[in-house]
């Protein structure tokens, strides 16, 4: 770490902190190093090391029976075979690679990616719309605020495993959901069994559980907007849509994009809900198999191949996070303005919008 370079000169100063003013930066650098090191080290042990290990494992063969000889063979180097297994749906045989036969888990990568992407787009889309709506409703003075806040935190606090079991009961064929649908004249659906109903069952349960989080983050953003801005807009005769489009949306862009980023990454790694609610099944058996479920299904069949898949999942998620932060305005690491990134600090944005709103 670069702080060690500086620490040599500070060795003569008595105790860090006592003569802070003279050696402010060097002393702080050295102290910071010791304060931050345990966290970085521990995260290195629990994240970086397993990740590196997974990448190494992913280039080795799974041990198993060699179909040509019937003998148990140890792994050995697999080259890119494990990746080809998932990305190209190729299964390796002693005579070379062949397209995986139907029903082989290797052919499930692209469908799982599709299901995961579908969940992500639909869930996050609905959550943004509902979250904006909820946040707008909550963003005013009223009695019993604490009650509303507690009520909206309930879905968030319930463990996902319990949420899944709860919705499994609600979605049962004789359950309350089908009963309520019957009231409006819809025939009962097999929510946790059929292809599309099971997919929407996962989405409904996910939206129920996570819209509160979205709404609270958006609300936090809304509360940064000064009432003056709205007054000015109203005096200038702006319509409600114009006010929303030109004032609210630009001013909550950063918290909204941060919320969307976190939720997107959450749904991309979604596991508990589809796994417990539908077993990853539905329809022909894979209607709700997400990428994470596919990794877990593979693990007991061979963790070298599972490692390749989990590495692919990691890369997909890292790529999405990068795109969001770089191009989507999800400014999660907020640097001071002088550090030379192109984003303007939030304060400057506020000032700009305020002046344009008043200047209209």
């Amino acid at each position, binding site marked *: 770490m*670069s*702080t060690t370079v*500086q620490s040599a000169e500070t060795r003569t100063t008595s105790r860090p902190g006592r003569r802070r003013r003279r050696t*402010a930066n060097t002393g*702080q*650098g050295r*102290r*910071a190093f010791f304060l*931050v090191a345990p*966290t*970085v080290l*521990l*995260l290195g042990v*629990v*994240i970086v090391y397993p*990740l590196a290990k997974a990448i190494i494992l992913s280039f080795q063969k799974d041990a198993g029976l060699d179909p040509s000889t019937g003998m148990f063979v140890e792994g050995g180097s697999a080259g890119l075979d494990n990746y080809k297994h998932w990305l190209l749906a190729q299964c390796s045989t002693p005579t070379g690679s062949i397209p995986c036969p139907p029903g082989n888990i290797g052919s499930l990568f692209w469908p799982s990616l599709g299901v995961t992407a579908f969940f992500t787009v639909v869930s996050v889309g609905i959550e943004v719309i509902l979250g904006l709506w909820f946040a707008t*409703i*909550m963003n*005013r*003075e*009223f009695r019993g605020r604490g009650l*509303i806040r*507690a*009520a*909206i*935190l*309930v*879905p968030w*606090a*319930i*463990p*996902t*495993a*319990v949420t899944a*079991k*709860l919705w499994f*009961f609600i979605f*049962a064929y004789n*359950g*309350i959901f089908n*009963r309520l649908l019957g009231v409006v004249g819809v025939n009962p659906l097999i929510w946790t069994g059929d292809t599309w109903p099971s997919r929407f069952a996962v989405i409904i349960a996910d939206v129920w559980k996570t819209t509160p989080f979205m709404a609270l*983050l958006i*609300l936090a953003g809304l*509360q*940064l907007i000064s009432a003056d801005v*709205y007054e000015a807009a109203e005096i200038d005769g702006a319509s409600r849509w114009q006010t929303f489009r030109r004032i609210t949306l630009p001013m909550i862009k950063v918290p909204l994009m*941060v919320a969307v980023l*976190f939720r997107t990454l959450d749904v991309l*790694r979604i*596991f508990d809900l589809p796994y*417990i609610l539908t077993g990853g099944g539905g329809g022909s058996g894979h209607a709700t198999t997400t990428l994470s479920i596919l*990794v877990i299904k593979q*693990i007991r069949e061979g963790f070298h191949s599972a*490692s390749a898949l*989990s590495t692919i*999942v*990691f890369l997909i998620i*890292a790529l999405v*996070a990068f795109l969001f932060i770089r191009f989507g305005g999800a400014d999660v690491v907020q640097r001071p303005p002088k550090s030379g990134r192109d984003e303007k600090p*939030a304060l400057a944005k506020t000032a700009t919008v305020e002046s344009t709103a008043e200047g209209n």
Partner: protein
Amino acid sequence: MVTATLPGTDRPTVTHEPHHKTSRWRDVRAYAGLLLIVVWGLAPFYWMIVTAFRDVGYTFDTTPWFTHVTLDNFRTAFATDRGNHFAQALVNSAIVGIVTTVLAMLVGVFAAYAISRLQFVGKYLVLGFILGASMFPGVALVSPLFQLFSSWGWLTGYNYQALILPDISFALPLTVYTLTAFFSEMPWDLEEAARIDGCTQGQAFRKVLLPLAAPGLFTTAILAFISAWNEYLLASQFATAKTQPVTVAIAGFTGAQPHQEPYTAVMAAGAIVTVPLIILVLVFQRAIVSGLTAGGVKG
């Protein structure tokens, strides 16, 4: 960083000044909206509680209030004759949750202090690394750790560390960035003031800073504990029959007959697992909301 008015603080918020003609209509709509939010949050939870207290023979009775009330489901939930060990699972979840929280707090508090208080080279690299860690997919840990843990013999018996270590991977980043957000809003100048008034550094810390930081520390600990208590993916792979936490126990609850879901008992178990969290949420909702949004909104 600019201090934000978090939704947790009850400062006056934006109120539109409606035209008088429409003001009553707007009020009606606003309260209808608030009612909708309450129903959204509570209705499925209410259904879980109603079912938890309903006789198993009336599982699919859709009467919307408490009928055929019984405590049998709670007895069934704790019964061990069908291979469910729910009481043990509660203990396990508490052990894993508390140890994970304490570890993450002990380590994370120093990093958060450094990031929010000190200037040092590589600060944003560290912050980026920690945020990256919080976005890391847990499933990518499973296959390498599965291999390591099984070769170390951690996948049998009372090896709680096989659950606690992987949980650190999400609890520690969460702790660091929530605490960083709290710390950067603290009036640190008071430390200097206390020193000038004759406090030693230790006294300034104990008597001035600690009481100020306590709400933030406490909120962060609650968030970390809830995240560990609710974890399922890693636990479902690394828990043994002995260390199984509640999430895994509930997901695998077996009834009297195979293939017949013991709905009412599962709802009872779910209620037991959830009610402590709901109480935490009711008591500390303001602090929890500010902790939840602290990572996202820094102005």
